[in-house]
């Protein structure tokens, strides 16, 4: 499951980040590292970008970027 497809206000844990794209490293620098808990806050009015909460701060990113991040939902 990728970060762009989890439901709103559900906390998931990052399992891996695809860093082949130029911005994968950027996402990791912003704290999206494996193991970190992440919550999808909401999507913008037109469905994209999305707002997430990571390490207690909020970050906006597009769905294409979010799809590079694999997550697992805590059960």
């Amino acid at each position, binding site marked *: 499951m990728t970060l762009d497809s989890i439901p709103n206000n559900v906390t998931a844990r990052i399992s891996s980040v695809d860093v082949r794209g130029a*911005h994968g490293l*950027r996402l990791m*620098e*912003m704290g999206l590292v494996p193991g970190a808990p992440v919550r999808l806050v*909401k999507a913008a*009015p037109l469905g*994209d970008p999305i707002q997430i909460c990571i390490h207690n701060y909020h*970050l906006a*990113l*597009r769905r294409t970027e979010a799809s590079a991040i694999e997550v697992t939902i805590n059960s």
Partner: protein
Amino acid sequence: MSAVLNTLSLPEHVPLSVPRTARPLTVIVAGNPNAGKTSLFNSLTGLRQKVANYPGVTVESKSGNWFISGNGPTVRLVDLPGLYSLDATSLDEKIASEILLDGSATKADAIIVVADATNLIRNLYLAMQLIETGRPIVLALTMVDLAERAKLKIDLAKLSDELGVPVVPIVAKQRRGLKQLGQAVLDVALRGAQPSIDVKANRDSSPQNNHSRLIQRYARIERIVSDAVETRTEDGPDISERIDRFVTHKFLGPVILLLVMLLVFQAIFSWASLPMTLIDHLFSGLGNVVRANLPPGVFTDLLTDGIIAGVGGVIAFLPQILLLFLFISLLEDSGYMARAAFLMDRLMRAVGLHGKAFVPLLSSFACAVPGIMGTRTIESPKDRIATIMIAPFMSCSARLPVYTLIIAAFFSGKTVLGVVSLGAVIILTMYLLGIAVAIVVASILKRTILNAPTPPFVMEMPPYRLPNFGNVAQALLTRSTVFLKRAGTVILAISILLWALMAFPRSSAPQSKTAEGAVQIENSFAGRAGRLIEPAIKPLGFDWKIGIGLISSFAARETIISTLSIVYNVGEGADNKSASLVDTLRNARRADGTPIWTPLTGVSLMIFFLLACQCMSTVAVVRRETNSWRWPLFMMGYMLVLAYVASLVTFQGGRLLGFA
């Protein structure tokens, strides 16, 4: 009691142990965007700041003197643009990281890394990178008051121990912790650099190595933070998230954005008009005094018509520019700008641009110059150029006098559907037309010469905060100084040049006072140029007199009004609403008795002014921001072609449709 409180309650009059060094020290302030860097910088330097360019690059740097204590060394404090990581992506970040990593350009004796205590993990990432380089570092912990309120307990001693650098909590606004920060900075500056950690690995910048170092760094940070910080348990969404329920709401969000934009425009256009008139009167009064007290001649003309009128005309825009910057810094400081970019990104992407381009484009409605400077936050160079190239299509405030004149002359007193004034509809149409052209041009540029893969949109949504009014005032002060400096140099030179073009060669024919001006201008270089280009602009509905106006307005659009007043013999001090200029335009006739100015001529002229790049300041700032003449020349060229074609189509098409 928490460690944070203990340290902060230290009495501020503790004597500092001041090292005996005569050498002035250089200290850099670095940190993530929104970490409170500017507040700290302002508290430490007060008004003793100056703005200069970094050596070799075209980005402004702020520096100021910090008096740590009466008998200590002089400290030059340098403020860097905010950055998240030393592996930079945007231009702002690249410059900041180059300065931090390159010892030679700005030799720093110490670096203050500013970190937001409420967002410690991500803020420590940059700190960790810098600590690894072994440079002398002090970590300044900001927002500790907010951290206390959020029930975060930070063990400062432990944090400092594990990071290996001094940690000083500060509340910049209340000046808490500033002395301790000074002491810590002096201590590390004198101790000098430490051997950097893991130098070999740092030099190896292969992606795999970057990747694994990144993960190690975050693992270390998370361990340190879980040791040193006691976090409260999450209790639902914070206040910012609650505000966002409205501000980025599906339906309310766009409505609020529209209202905010309307408020800003309303303020820029109506609140600024009184101070603008005052400045205008001040300069025309000054011109009259000079003229009355000096013997008539070329020198007096240069002083009054060239310098005082030219520079005064530009300084009259200072109130609008200040109001715009006031709103931009309020919106930026409060955190709203990021929400605007969040709302607009999807639409901006449709033209191949980035949500972050929305803010500079919005600014360009007041003035393209600050808008173009605001594009530095855009990561992709090609996107940045595309944004710069379309910024001048946003109808800036300098077009407004031109629109107002045409509307007063040809469309006043008319209404649409009985209620809305035709003038308002025309102005709105011009704005929308500018946006439409910008969209088309951006799409074309992004598909052709500026074609590049879609850049990532990764943007922090900072928590809402009350703007720090000290910071806002400081920003306005800096802005006005920069603007006035420009008015005193570049704009002064252009004013003199334009005056000379209209004043030479001198006509000797004795004439009445007003007619003298008209004859003079007709025979001047500018007048001859107007006649020269008349065949080219005739299909647009313009005669040679308008041609002179077009030439003179190349430097600044609003100049056309004073030029037209001179060419059409209207008395001194005519402004855009003066009845005489309006009447003169309505009554101007060709030799065969047909009117020169028709409503269609007016519309054609407005469209030309909307699309042509008639602004020396814009050209100069594009040259500075792109570091080449290629882009400003390209911009002037394509905008001129576009303006010409659009005016041609308007005028000829209008005539075919039977409009006069």
